[in-house]
């Protein structure tokens, strides 16, 4: 163990703003990226399902009319 106390740990030998500023921003960006990626996934699935509802009946009709002619 490198630290005499938790307060020594948090003060990082006087370099606290630089060390914790680095780690905090990295953590924030990683968390933000994960949220954005998962949200994009959810939005894509939702949008494509809606799109399919709009276009799918049309496709089924075409298939049905094709079968009638065959």
């Amino acid at each position, binding site marked *: *163990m*490198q*630290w005499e106390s938790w307060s020594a*740990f948090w003060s*990082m*030998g*006087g*370099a606290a*703003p*630089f*060390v914790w*500023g*680095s*780690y905090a*921003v*990295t953590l924030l*960006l*990683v968390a933000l*990226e*994960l949220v954005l*990626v*998962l949200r*994009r*996934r959810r939005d*894509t*699935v939702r949008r*494509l*399902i809606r*799109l*399919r509802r709009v276009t*799918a009946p049309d496709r089924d009709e075409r298939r049905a009319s094709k079968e009638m002619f065959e």
Partner: protein
Amino acid sequence: MKTANFDDRIKRSKSLLRFAAPQMFYPLAGTFAPWCLAVAAVLTVLGLWIGFFVAPTDAQQGDVYRVIFIHVPAAWMSMFIYLVMAFWAAVGLVLNTRLSFMMAQALAPTGAMFCFVALWTGALWGRPTWGTYWVWDARLTSQLLLLFLYLGYIALTQAIDDARRADRAGAIIALVGAVNVPIIYFSVQWWNTLHQGASVSLTRAPSMASAMLWGMLVMALAAWAYTFAVVFWRVRSLILERERHTEWVGAELAAHEGRA
């Protein structure tokens, strides 16, 4: 009928190349992504434990050097991801494979994120050790150029509506910009920079305490695992989007609807 035959054929294929087909890669990426994220989380905890509690205070720099455990892995990742992006862009241009371009696009935001992290942590490390947040030396300037290349690639591929044209235009930036990566890496040898030389190389013994080195390497592995996880998730959205007219995506969405 032609597409149905292709689907059957590719599902029966035993070749590893079958995963170049989006409909085969999609479930594979979905299976791997959560595992990669779990591995990344475990390695991050381990790496930070080594970095903060095992590695000793540096004799010259004191404790501020502990920024290294994110700075160096982030910088490595930012360069490596760009090369992988350029590789997929080249494969896409030569073989005209759909998935390659999607991989290139899925990698860019994560590369840009790591590039920014490298610059940010570097600035915060530079202030107490060099007395300045920023200097226009070769290493810092070429790394900043890398960030602009990432942002340029993302902006260009987003701005062009036609996916095929966007892919090709982006591929040109990715390939031309790849020249910058060796410049970043060797800048500390080629020019007289304020930034120090490499502490770790394949040819020499590393010039740092072994606990510091291990902390850095474990964090680098964590960054790798994290990159795999996010890129797999992102490419899955891209695949659905681009293959939305195919029957297999229709089936996939129907399954989702059933669950919802």
